[in-house]
C-alpha cells in the first residue's frame, strides 16, 4: 500500500526529472486518477487520452506542487478532474437518455456517513454535506463525481438552469461556512 508520504517523495523526485520515480508514481496513482476521469467522461477511449495528458501535465508541473496546499493525490486529482471536465464540456452535451449509466449513480453512492473507514477530512465533509437538503446534496455529488453540467442537472431535476445555478451557489456557500477556510 502506497502512503501519502510515499507519493510526496515520488512527486519530489519527479520534479527533479527522475523517470523511474515517474513510473512508480504512475503505478501508485493511475488507477485512482483513471477512476476519476472515467467517471466523468464515461468513455474509455476519451479517458485513455485524457489520462495520458494528465500524466504529461504532472510531469511538467511537478515542480509547482506545494505541500502546504494539499496532499499530492489531491493536487493530481485536481489536474485530472480539470482535464476531464474541459474535455467533457468541449463535447456536445450528452442527453441523459443517451447515458443510462448516469441515472443510477446517485442512488448507488453510499450515503457519505455509511463508511466509517473514510478519512477524517471526508467525515468532516460528509457531516457538512448531510446538512444540505437531500436533493441539493445529490446535485453536488453528481456534479463533482460525474461532471454533470448545470444544463444536465436542470434536465434531471426538471428546473430552469438559473434555479440550478442559485441552488448550487447556495449549497456551496453553506458547505464553505460549515467547513471553514
Amino acid at each position, binding site marked *: 500500500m502506497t502512503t501519502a508520504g510515499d507519493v510526496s517523495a515520488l512527486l519530489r523526485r519527479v520534479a527533479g526529472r527522475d*523517470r523511474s520515480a515517474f*513510473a512508480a508514481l*504512475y503505478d501508485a496513482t*493511475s*488507477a*485512482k486518477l*483513471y*477512476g*476519476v476521469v*472515467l*467517471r*466523468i467522461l464515461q468513455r*474509455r477511449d476519451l*479517458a*485513455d487520452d485524457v*489520462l*495520458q*495528458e494528465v*500524466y*504529461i501535465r504532472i*510531469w511538467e508541473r511537478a*515542480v*509547482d506542487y506545494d505541500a502546504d*496546499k*494539499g496532499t499530492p*493525490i*489531491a*493536487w493530481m*486529482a*485536481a489536474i485530472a*478532474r*480539470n482535464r476531464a*471536465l*474541459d474535455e467533457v*464540456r*468541449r463535447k456536445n452535451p450528452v442527453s441523459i437518455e443517451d447515458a443510462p449509466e448516469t441515472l443510477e449513480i446517485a442512488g448507488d453512492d453510499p450515503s*457519505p456517513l455509511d463508511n466509517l473507514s*473514510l*478519512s477524517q*477530512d*471526508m467525515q*468532516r*465533509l*460528509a457531516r457538512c454535506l448531510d446538512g444540505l437538503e437531500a436533493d441539493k446534496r445529490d446535485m*453536488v*455529488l453528481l*456534479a*463533482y*463525481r460525474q461532471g*454533470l*453540467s*448545470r444544463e444536465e442537472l436542470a434536465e434531471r431535476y426538471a428546473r430552469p438552469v438559473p434555479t440550478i*445555478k442559485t441552488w*448550487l*451557489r447556495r449549497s*456551496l*456557500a453553506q*458547505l464553505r461556512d460549515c*467547513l471553514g*477556510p
Partner: protein
Amino acid sequence: MNDREDIDGLAAEYVLGTLDAGERAEVAARRQREDDLDTAIGAWERRLAPLAEAVPPARPPAGLFQKIEARLANAAGSATGTGQVIELERRVRRWRNLAAAASAVAACLLVVIGVREMVRPQTPSSYVAVFQKDDVSPAFLLSVDLETRMLSIRMVAAERPPGKTYQLWIATEQSGGVPQSLGLIEERADITRTVLTAYDPTVVQKATFGVSLEPAGGSPTGRPTGPALHAKLIPSPR
C-alpha cells in the same frame, strides 16, 4: 452579491465542474493573473478533494504508460525544446504572481529590477514574446531563436472557441507594417517552425508579432480579421 462572494462562488463552481466550456476557459485564463481567484480555487479544491478519494479506482489499459513515455520523449527531442518553453512559462507565471503581490507601481519596479537581475541571456540569439491581455483573453508564449530563425509558440492559458482558430502574424518595417501570416496555432501542440528563415534576424528582432482569432482554417482575407493580441520580442530570460 459583492465581488468577494462572486469570486468565491465562481471558484466553487469551477471546482465543482458545473461551468460550461466558455466559462471554464475564462476562469482558467483569469486565475493566471488574479491571485484571489487562484487562491479561492485552491481552497475549493482542498475542501472538495475528499469526494475524489471516494471515487472507485479503475485500472487503466496496459501499455498506457509506454504511450506517455513516448510522448515525453518526443517532446524532449523537439528542436527548440518544449521543456525550455515550459520553463519560460513557469517564469512568466512567477513574474505575474510577483507583480500581483505588489501594488501596480511597485510591481513595475519589481519587474524591471527582476528582469534586469534575471535577464542574462546565455544565448543572445534566444528571444521570447509574451502575448497577454487582462481578463478573459488568451495568453501565448512565443520563442524565437534568431540564429536558426526557429520559432515556437505555445498556448499558455487559451481555449479555442468552437469553430475558431488562432493565427500568428508578423509585421515588419519591410512589409510597411502589414501583417503577414506565420500560420495557424494548433490546439495543445507547440508549433515549431522555420517560417522565419526568409527574414533577416535584425528585422525579426524589431518586428511586431500578433495573434488573432480567426474562423476555422485561418483568415479568409490573408489579413487578421478577428480580435488580436500583439507583442514584441525581448531577450529570453535565463
